[in-house]
């Protein structure tokens, strides 16, 4: 095993180009477990800790460009307003120690369906900034990023530099089920974002299909129901039957398995419950904001 220590992004890209099998390591919270337990012996470890700008973020007009190695604890602290869903998701990641090291780049690189960030990214809308020495930068839409169980759209010579997450234009929520009250891998997870500017709702589901997925049928149903009912304008309470059908459609969009963490049947059920609850929470928040705005006007 070789340990590559590039001092800059350019060196890192060059190293990855030269050694496409090199395994990038940043927070180490996935890679080191595999090494410690003898599950993986990469030929090269590519340390990204010395590439300083991976730990930085920029808040732009439309989106936040989040460096791949920004630790979850910093997202929780500093990006709660811009990226509320991802901040909530970050808070559910493992333990404080892990949140101090792990970042979204690692979650994307591993592309485990159980990665905590995925549902929040799917719901908010995001693009993954990947780069290679040979072909430069490309932006991969998050909906096209997850290609299979622990597989993603990256080429062997590419590294994730950042993820561009759309700034919240409305309330976002995130829930995750685990069988412990802290430090737990998702049995399943659900992210939901209201986008009042486009009058749409987006979702993300974790650990309930081979890849993180959006519940598109449920989104389409809800978008239509909200539009037809004039909910965005009236800000009235979402009809229970609409919420229920949305929840049922979210459940139906799962394709889960039975494993040691939970049954497929439970996962489907829990996603439905989380869908209904997060819709209620975000919608209540949206109504509250509307009332406050109207009150001020």
């Amino acid at each position, binding site marked *: 095993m070789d340990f590559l220590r590039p001092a800059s992004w350019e060196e890192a890209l060059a190293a990855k180009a030269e050694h496409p099998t090199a395994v990038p390591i940043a927070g180490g919270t996935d890679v080191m477990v595999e090494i410690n*337990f003898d599950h993986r012996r990469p030929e090269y470890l590519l340390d990204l800790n010395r590439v300083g700008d991976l730990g930085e973020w920029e808040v732009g007009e439309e989106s936040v460009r989040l460096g791949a190695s920004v630790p979850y604890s910093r997202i929780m602290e500093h990006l709660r307003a811009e990226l509320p869903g991802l901040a909530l998701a970050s808070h559910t990641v493992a333990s404080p120690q892990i949140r101090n090291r792990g970042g979204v780049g690692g979650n994307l690189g591993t592309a485990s369906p159980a990665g905590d960030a995925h549902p929040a990214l799917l719901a908010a809308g995001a693009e993954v900034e990947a780069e290679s020495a040979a072909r430069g930068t490309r932006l991969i839409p998050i909906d096209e990023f997850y290609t299979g169980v622990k597989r993603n759209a990256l080429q062997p010579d590419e590294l994730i530099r950042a993820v561009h997450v759309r700034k919240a234009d409305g309330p976002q929520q995130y829930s995750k089920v685990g069988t412990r*009250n802290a430090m737990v891998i998702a049995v399943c997870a659900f992210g939901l974002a209201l986008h009042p500017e486009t009058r749409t709702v987006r979702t993300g589901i974790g650990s309930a299909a081979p890849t993180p997925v959006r519940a598109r049928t449920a989104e389409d149903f809800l978008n239509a129901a909200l539009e037809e009912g004039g909910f965005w304008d009236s800000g009235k309470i979402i009809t229970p039957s609409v919420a229920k059908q949305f929840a049922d459609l979210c459940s139906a969009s799962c394709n889960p398995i039975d494993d040691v963490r939970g049954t497929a049947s439970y996962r489907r059920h829990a996603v439905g*419950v989380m869908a209904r*609850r997060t819709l209620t929470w975000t919608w209540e928040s949206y109504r509250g904001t509307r009332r406050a705005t109207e009150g001020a006007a």
Partner: protein
Amino acid sequence: MPATGAPTKITQGSPAKGGIGESTLRPDGTLKVTGEFAYSSDMWHEDMLWGQILRSTVAHAEIVSIDTSEALATAGVYAILTYDDLPTEVKNYGLEIQDTPVLAHGKVRHHGEPVAIVAADHPETARRAAAKIKVDYRELPVITDEASATAPDAILVHEGRDDHHSGHVPHPNIVHRQPIVRGDVAAARERADVIVTGEYTFGMQDQAFLGPESGLAVPEEDGGVHLYVATQWLHSDLRQIAPVLGLPEDKVRMTLSGVGGAFGGREDLSMQIHACLLALRTGKPVKIVYNRFESFFGHVHRHPAKLYYEHGATRDGKLTHLKCRIVLDGGAYASASPAVVGNASSLSVGPYVVDDVDIEAVALYTNNPPCGAMRGFGAVQACFAYEAQMDKLAKKLGMDPVKFRQLNAMEQGTLMPTGQPVDSPAPVAELLRRVTAMPLPPERQWESSEGADVRQLPGGLSNTTHGEGVVRGVGYAVGIKNVGFSEGFDDYSTAKVRVEVAGGEAVATVHTAMAEVGQGGVTVHAQIARTELGVAQVTIHPADTQVGSAGSTSASRQTYVTGGAVKNACELVREKVLEIGRRKFGSYHPAWATAELLLEGGKVVTDGGEVLGDLADVLEGESVEIEAEWRHRPTEAFDLRTGQGNGHVQYSFAAHRAVVEVDTELGLVKVIELACAQDVGKALNPLSVVGQIQGGTTQGLGVAVMEEIIVDPKTAKVRNPSFTDYLIPTILDTPTIPVDVLELADDHAPYGLRGIGEAPTLSSTPAVLAAIRDATGLELNRTPVRPEHLTGTA
């Protein structure tokens, strides 16, 4: 050169009297908070090698061949040993039945069984070499439950058994069977106005001690070996290790290293023999440290169980009879299964008066992971079942569940189902009264000015509810656990106590082989020495095999038995000291000859309080050292057909009230409070007593809602050997645990004390389950209860 991390003496002075009954602080506390305390995995020796074990990847198979040639050729590899390299005819070990191969011989019987061992200059070298060993397995069908184990054509897990249980078991795949019959169940059943039955399942729990199995074996010049290891019983290890090495016991020196928790999981051997074999083969010190993955294969677990119960009761709430059958899965090797069967059967009634019983407990041989000792030891599984039954009965009778239990509670003088009278206080009704009397925690604690605090809700940080679907429930349970080794076992401990003058002051040294695993035995030994010898400074000698056996740190027995041995040795030392005093100073004061004399505050005093002289003056130029064995009252075996017999020496009782909040839609549970009341006889160290009760309570919580080793029934392979998927409670899963300590002396025990470590683990689990049933209205006949069981999605 000596091994780095070898334990040293710890001397503790005490500003106060520091005797029994005080919350004296741990003598090893400073070392433990500074990182200096050396655990077995911290041992280091110049030039040491690392040992690695190759374990079976299948549960049941014939070994066709093992090829180590490529592995041996790896640079940095010093030795690879398989069964064929074992040096003597003794190739098995075991606590009671020597059925466990040191290295697999022709067959593996469970997933993760040791097949070969490697010594190399770096752990990674050893791992890579182990990976190169080629083992050709021919897989056999797996036996995973009672039906497959006792089928007429079942493959025998162990062919040709000749152990002392083999003659009376109904099938060779049953390790041991213990029936208990008393009274006339058929007649009693006629008197019952209500009958309640239940079939209960208890999952496989892991001790999950944090310090992994580890140790260092150092070859010695005389051809022997010195093993530094974390264990629960040095002498039991020694008895099993030496014959396999072909060494007399005095050539195998054992020293206890720091032990990172045990809970029963270190009663059986793990890496001990392997490290010694590699050290003796290579002539170099060998260190072995399991990682967490390996640890799940490296020790026995709590027996999973199926429990079939039938109780009857009269309309006015009196229990009429009990019929029950308890099937414990012992896995591939016997370990402590026979004793667990004895406990499960004899304690299956619980702390209740039931005169007519028909009980049977068995342990199976299967290809599942071996199971053995874990805190509560057979009594835990039974308590889960009988307490569920009590709630069912109370409900059917329309009675309050606590009052129903109190109505049937045993007391001093009650006969156990074995016919043995309970001859010390049994305050079962009182403990229930005490937990019931504690104020209930406030409702809806999650509500705050800033909205719901998810940390106080089911799901915790995962943000699954802000109060939706959350229902509170309250449940009660009480349990009975035997203390000390039972069924006629000669359960003794040895203590060596010395007093001498150092720096002008009389000081004491206590030397035992007691395994300090965190319970605080070292604290208590110093307290006993201070109380009995009136000294301030006490040195605790490292535990090793240079002194006689102290028995096991298990069965809640150490304070009772080794504490008793320390007290006894101190009393003998005191007599000798007083003899010296009489010889030296008797002529100066008549009280030396006539009065009852005590040692207090470094002085010899009469029982009237008159000071006769300084202990230091008496001991000037002399020291007194005595090593003596001490044993509790003898017990006897249970009759193999009727289960009758005075099998136990003492009992320990605890009661719990659990308050839970359940997210009934998602099936997530938050335990809000687990109140405990326990009779401890006499609290030698109240701070430690409360710590034991809270720790035991939490392990019971764990197996109520999350902890389970999951074994694939098709392959008998362990599916979750990691802390990612075997979950133990975090600080956010653990509630406040108010403890009410009752002290009713057992006159048969030293200072009236009662063993305390296990009882709280029993009743905690059924109390939590009862609370979840109260919240959800579900029947819930298995533990741990998982979200799918609460949501109908299992």
